[in-house]
């Protein structure tokens, strides 16, 4: 999409199709996720987001990772939970939220969610946690076990050592690996991640970022990653949404080079840092503008 030699940020007007489609050819491209003028006002009367419009097209062989940045309280989690169909965010107060061309009606296994808070089921071992969704789907026990063990390995855990552990015996990083495996084993079309690595140390964080990139490509899923780390968003993302505050809306949408080297390496390179600094300037500019506007 772009060469990494120069900081290549392509600001696009919020809401414009990601791929430059020449006049009216949109009918053939299906969209993975599409927001049209979406707004959410909570029962408290507080309007968290307003006029959020974007689309992520379904381009075979090119699964996007969308990084979502923005100040605290600008509605990032609200957007993710609307895609997932989770209450009380769902249903949207105004506008339409579509996934794979259909309005979202309820949560489903086609849209996996990895939360920041640890949500491993305490009464299930690692293996049983990962098999949870398969169990709900009715997959036979032996097949379930095999898949679960496969994924224990893929997310960097050890079958022998970890499969029978209970969540309270795991570190934070291991718990998030379990959460990732539990979602990916279901081969979701969309993976929603709300600051999943926020509580991890830098080394574990790099490892998890690389794992996320590799595994989401493997299962052919589009990822929405909410994060407070600009480095993380720029490294993992093919595209960034930068949200502004009160009420939250997308102020800047941009394309960035996809990650093609390990996080620990790439995130130290000058070219990478150039992009991070540009994005940081942009975000800080938006925040300033935001303050001036209110």
């Amino acid at each position: 999409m772009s060469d990494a030699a120069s900081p290549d940020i392509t600001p696009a007007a919020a809401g414009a199709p990601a791929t430059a489609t020449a006049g009216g050819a949109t009918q053939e491209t299906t969209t993975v996720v599409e927001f049209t003028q979406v707004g959410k006002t909570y029962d408290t009367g507080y309007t968290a987001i307003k006029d959020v419009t974007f689309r992520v097209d379904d381009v075979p062989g090119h699964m996007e990772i969308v990084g979502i940045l923005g100040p605290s309280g600008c509605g990032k989690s609200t957007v993710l939970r609307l895609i997932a169909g989770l209450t009380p965010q769902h249903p949207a107060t105004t506008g339409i939220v579509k996934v794979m061309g259909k309005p979202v009606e309820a949560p489903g296994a086609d849209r996996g969610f990895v939360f920041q808070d640890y949500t491993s089921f305490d009464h299930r071992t690692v293996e049983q946690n990962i098999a949870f969704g398969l169990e709900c789907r009715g997959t036979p026990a032996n097949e379930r076990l095999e898949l679960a063990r496969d994924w224990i390995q893929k997310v960097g855990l050890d079958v022998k050592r970890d499969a029978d552990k209970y969540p309270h015996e795991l570190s934070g990083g291991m718990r998030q690996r379990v959460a990732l495996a539990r979602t990916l084993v279901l081969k979701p079309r969309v993976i929603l991640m709300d600051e999943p690595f926020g509580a991890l140390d830098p080394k574990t964080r790099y490892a998890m970022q690389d794992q996320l990139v590799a595994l989401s490509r493997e299962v052919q899923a589009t990822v929405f990653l909410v994060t407070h780390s600009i480095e993380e968003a720029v490294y993992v993302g093919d595209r960034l949404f930068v949200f502004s505050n009160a009420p939250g809306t997308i102020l800047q949408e941009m394309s960035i080079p996809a990650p093609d080297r390990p996080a620990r390496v790439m995130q130290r390179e000058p070219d990478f840092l150039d992009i991070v600094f540009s994005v940081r300037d942009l975000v800080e500019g938006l925040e300033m503008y935001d303050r001036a506007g209110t």
Partner: protein
Amino acid sequence: MAPLPLLALRATPSLPVRQAAGGVAIVLVLLAWYLLTSGATPEARAISPSVFPSPGEVIKGFPSLVTERNLVGGIAASLNRVFLGFGLALLVAIPLGIVAGSFRLFGAAAQPISLFGRTIPVAALLPLSLQMFGIGELQKVMFIFLATAPFIFHDTARAIVGVEDRYVDTARTLGASSSHVMAKVLIPLALPDIYAMIRAMFGIAFGYIMLAEVVDAGAGLGYILLQSQRRGMPEHLVGTLFVISALAYGIDALFRFFERGFFPYRRSHE
């Protein structure tokens, strides 16, 4: 002057020190008991034998408590009543509590009735149960049922409601249906709390049964207590109290033992 570290506010002494403190307290109470009830003649005692027996009298009275007063049969009768009444309460109130906790409309509907049940004083339940169920075994069993069921219902519902939303959200995004969420998330995650509640409530039910047994029981620990008092045998009364205390402790220890086996994923068992 620096305060003694053991006496510092909220300082936690080591386990042996805590156990020693408990032991010393017991010895002090026993000593006081012994001193207050010792004397060559009844008149020489600080507390008359007709008011409170001496430790020696309680020990000497124990064989006759077992043989003449049928202590073992009394324990069996009391436990049997508690098991029946409490078991019935669990059978009825836990499923209802699970439904009330899972479906908030049902929970809201049950709320005032449950509150009423929980505020009826035990002292009022006794005449009420006699009125409704006569003076036989049924009354004893139903007394325990009525006294415990509202609490079991309430605490079960609360345990289910207490399961955090993020677990339900997670299950939903993994494709769980409503019945999956109930069976695989809400009930298992609430179970340790429900079990802890059962453990505490059983202790209370075991105490309550003595109340019902002071009326025409024919057998049971409460019956033995009352008869001992009426016949002027305080050594049997006090001896039975020790038996009750030991029994309650033993049953609770059993509950604790099984708790470890049932919930290996719980870090703390204290």
